[in-house]
């Protein structure tokens, strides 16, 4: 059996979450392209999606690949890698950072992805591990490390940027 819900319903239910994930992983500039590419690829493959599949995890998996494609296409890294470049964002302010979204873009790529897929998309660590590769424990650790790093800059924390690894 395959999926039969109209694709419009999929966009309606998951469009906002996938856009959040794209923004967190890529930053605002490239998020739109990644979102568009994700839903276009998803729509193409949609008739073959198994009934009962976790649609959100499926979309995030596609978004994960598209985010990598978008970064490659932008030519920011010519390195053949399945990883996103670290820290493309501007430097952190000296002191507490109220801009949580900007702080996320400064996380190492794996933490950024784990935080986005677990906390924004709501996927269990096991699903995140399936997307990122590696163990469930590693995915859990990456998400926890990411949150811990964000706590150090998000108010009312007073730890300065120099204390971050």
């Amino acid at each position: 059996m395959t999926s039969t819900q109209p694709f419009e319903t999929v966009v309606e239910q998951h469009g906002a979450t996938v856009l959040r994930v794209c923004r967190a992983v890529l930053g605002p500039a490239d998020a739109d392209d990644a979102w568009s590419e994700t839903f276009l690829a998803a729509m193409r493959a949609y008739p073959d999606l198994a009934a009962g599949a976790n649609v959100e995890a499926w979309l995030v998996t596609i978004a994960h690949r598209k985010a990598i494609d978008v970064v490659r296409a932008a030519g920011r890294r010519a390195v053949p890698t399945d990883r996103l470049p670290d820290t493309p964002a501007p430097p952190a302010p000296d002191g507490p950072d109220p801009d949580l979204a900007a702080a996320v873009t400064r996380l190492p790529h794996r933490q950024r992805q784990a935080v986005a897929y677990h906390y924004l998309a709501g996927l269990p660590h096991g699903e995140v591990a399936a997307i990122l590769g590696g163990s469930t424990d590693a995915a859990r650790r990456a998400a926890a490390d990411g949150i811990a790093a964000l706590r150090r800059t998000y108010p009312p924390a007073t730890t300065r940027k120099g204390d971050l690894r």
Partner: protein
Amino acid sequence: MSIHDDLPRHLTAAYPDTPDHLHRLRERLAAAARADGILDIAYRTVDSPVGPLLLAATDIGLVRVAYQREGHDTVLQTLAERISPRILLAPARLDTTVRELEEYFAGTRTAFDLPLDWRLSAGFRASVLHRLPDIGYGHTASYAAVAALAGNPRAVRAVGTACATNPLPVVVPCHRVVRSDGSLGGYLGGVEAKRALLTLEDAA
């Protein structure tokens, strides 16, 4: 106690919903899907004197017109199962249909000139529906007369079934099929809608 306990929740709030922005992305998706040839069904709704109508089209033509009482969500679900789930709200493909319907309801159009996709009807029902445009604007025909037109004079009940399951009401004028005694008979859009359409056509 600390705001940090809520950090995951704040994280979602750090990416606020942007409905207008998302709306533009969805429009862009519909255009890209159409250009890529994967928009199997485009749909929209349109207000009319007989209530909101759902209009759906494949790349062949108009495939479904649905009254609100049929349940638009149910109709879309059925289209997903019978034709393809690659369905998007994409009004552009239905511009001509909307214009012709507006002209029809304004009384300035007496026949539709639209490409139709007949795939939702088959067999005798299909041959019944194909004969219906022969009943001219402002005229009616009995179920028995339509059965004869479709080549099976005894299939009066089947004509009723064909009309009741017409996937393209209004455009394919099953509302012009009435009982031999002159009473309206049933209508998939409700008898009030049938009366409204016949009244509109008489008055024009």
